[in-house]
């Protein structure tokens, strides 16, 4: 039983990081219908900036954490301004390909820094002892990561629901033409969506970096694993990203906890999300919480 509970808890920890990674993805998709394949690279960039500020800049972790969120805010915003603004109204494939191109460019830039070719790890900020909750345990780093994740997600949801900008963002995602006619600047909303996504990516990067250490390959892989998560949740739903992230995390833990080693299976945690992804696409393509699109000729 305690094994089961531990799997669930670990799943929630991993899942909430997926949720945070998926959040940025959803933000961009929600407002501008762009699938950002370069998200993993932005996550990595966020982690590296946090590390640079903390270790080489000598700032306290929480400060550099927020500062790096600020940096990626402007980074992502300028990415949108430079590369994606021109492509408004172009076919989807162009937009996807631009983000793929962007991925390569960011790769190139990161290879210019020391982070491209070697490993780093954050100094340890939290107590090394685990927190034992009955039969299960969780580390301080993980706990703090989960808490930050939920705070951020809460903030973003609040922002979308209540603030004027958030409401205008939702309006844009609903109907661009109509929102333009009521005086909302659609390009500005797009820029802001990217900026917020950049922020959340930096936060995710900071947390992942603290848990796994800084390895470029590991970090940018998160840009791909978020696909099953956001599809399960519904591409345009923040709540969906959270729920699906946690479900996916728990499923992965169950897979490696119960499936691996039986019937000669191994490494199922890596492939199961994609199988689930295919199944969802076949039977419920808009995910758990996504909006159904109705098309007319």
């Amino acid at each position, binding site marked *: 039983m305690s094994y089961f509970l531990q799997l669930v808890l670990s799943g929630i920890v991993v899942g909430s990081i997926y949720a945070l990674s998926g959040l940025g993805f959803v933000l961009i998709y929600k407002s501008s219908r762009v699938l950002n394949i370069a998200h993993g690279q932005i996550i990595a960039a966020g982690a590296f900036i946090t590390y640079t500020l903390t270790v080489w800049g000598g700032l306290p972790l929480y400060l550099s954490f927020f500062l790096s969120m600020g940096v990626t805010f402007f980074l992502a915003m300028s990415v949108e301004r430079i590369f994606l603004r021109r*492509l408004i109204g172009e076919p989807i494939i*162009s937009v996807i390909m631009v983000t*793929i191109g962007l991925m390569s*460019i960011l790769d*190139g830039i990161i290879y210019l820094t020391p982070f491209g070719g070697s490993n780093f790890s954050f100094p340890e900020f939290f107590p090394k002892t685990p927190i034992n909750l009955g039969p299960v345990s969780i580390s301080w780093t993980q706990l703090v990561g989960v808490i930050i994740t939920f705070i951020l997600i809460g903030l973003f949801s609040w922002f979308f629901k209540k603030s004027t900008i958030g409401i205008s963002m939702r309006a844009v995602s609903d109907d661009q033409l109509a929102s333009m006619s009521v005086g909302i600047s659609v390009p500005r909303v797009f820029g802001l969506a990217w900026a917020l996504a950049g922020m959340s990516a930096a936060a995710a990067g900071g947390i992942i970096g603290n848990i796994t250490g800084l390895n470029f390959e590991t970090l940018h892989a998160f840009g791909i694993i978020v696909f099953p998560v956001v599809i399960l949740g519904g591409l345009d739903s923040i709540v969906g990203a959270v729920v699906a992230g946690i479900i996916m995390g728990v499923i992965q833990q169950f897979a490696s906890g119960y499936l691996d080693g039986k019937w000669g299976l191994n490494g199922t945690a*890596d492939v199961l999300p994609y199988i689930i992804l*295919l199944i969802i*696409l*076949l039977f419920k393509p808009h995910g758990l919480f996504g909006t159904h699109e109705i098309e007319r000729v």
Partner: protein
Amino acid sequence: MSANRWLATGNFFSSYREEQRIFATHFDRAVFAVFILALLVWPMCFEVSNKYMLVIDNIMIAMVAIIGLNLVTGFAGLISIGHAAFVGVGAYTLAFIARQMGDSHILITHFWPGMLLLCGLVGALFGGFVGLPALRLKHLYLAIATLSFQMIFQWTINFLPIFNQGQTISIGRVQWFGGEVARSDHYLFWYYVILIVVIMCGLAVRNLLRTRYGRSLVAVRDNDRAADAMGIHPGMTKVFAFALAGFFAGVAGGLHAYLYRGAGIESFTLHQSISYLAMAIVGGLGTLTGSFWGPAAIRLLDLQVENLVEWSARFMPANMNLATALKPLTFGLVIVLFLMFEPRGIANWWRIGRTYVKLWPFRY
């Protein structure tokens, strides 16, 4: 139809049949014939190093794959982020047979044209299967479905012992009229084989686009609801497009396995899929010539960057990171710049150039 069948400076078509002709003038046909002849003859006139022959072979294999990708992404408008996996299906079909029957089994060494066809058919089967979600899905969702196929393919190859868990499976040398194709002739031999395959694929697609099946692809891309109303089944058309793409990819995979004399998972990863998409875009989506320009441009760019890196390494030997970072950087920049400034790709330059020559000395 203009009086002069050799030169036409404008549009003189008077029936749809005429518009559908592959060669508008005799002159076009002659130029094409000379060009093909030149392609067949030049390796006999010049001594080419193995490296460049390999590069050329590799580019042409990519052309076969891109013809397929262009059908599904360019003509039918369905984004495929898993094309390398289809190429891999082809290569692993061959590898599977090699592993089951021995890598120099007579099937592989003597009946290689048949094996290539088989690779294509298996590719088509998988293509059609992966295309099934297209009966329900559209746009982005479909793209993600192909992405997940890519990931599942990689995992499967890496996991199953029958595929040597992703490690290279060797494939024997082929026979050609009694003799084994030796190492010294290997690249030249495959140059001719691949060239013929490329020409066949090019002609096949050119002809396909003249038929109702080809046109229905375009119709579904432009407006699938409207196509539905005209009696085209959009879902089946999409599955058909995927199967076709799978076929070309499979043939490319078989060629790849033969040329490299083995199949290993590294050649069929997500990274390669992205590369293929980039080639299709840079070449020009929805054009046949684009399928030839794209691979050539991207592969040669890669090579040029490598040369630049080597050259620059003489001045800054301690900074290898700087030099190697150029590769993804230029790759990304080329994609982005093309999308921003020439979304119709190199094929568009080709079209402009041709029109200019045709109309010379008149101009717009």
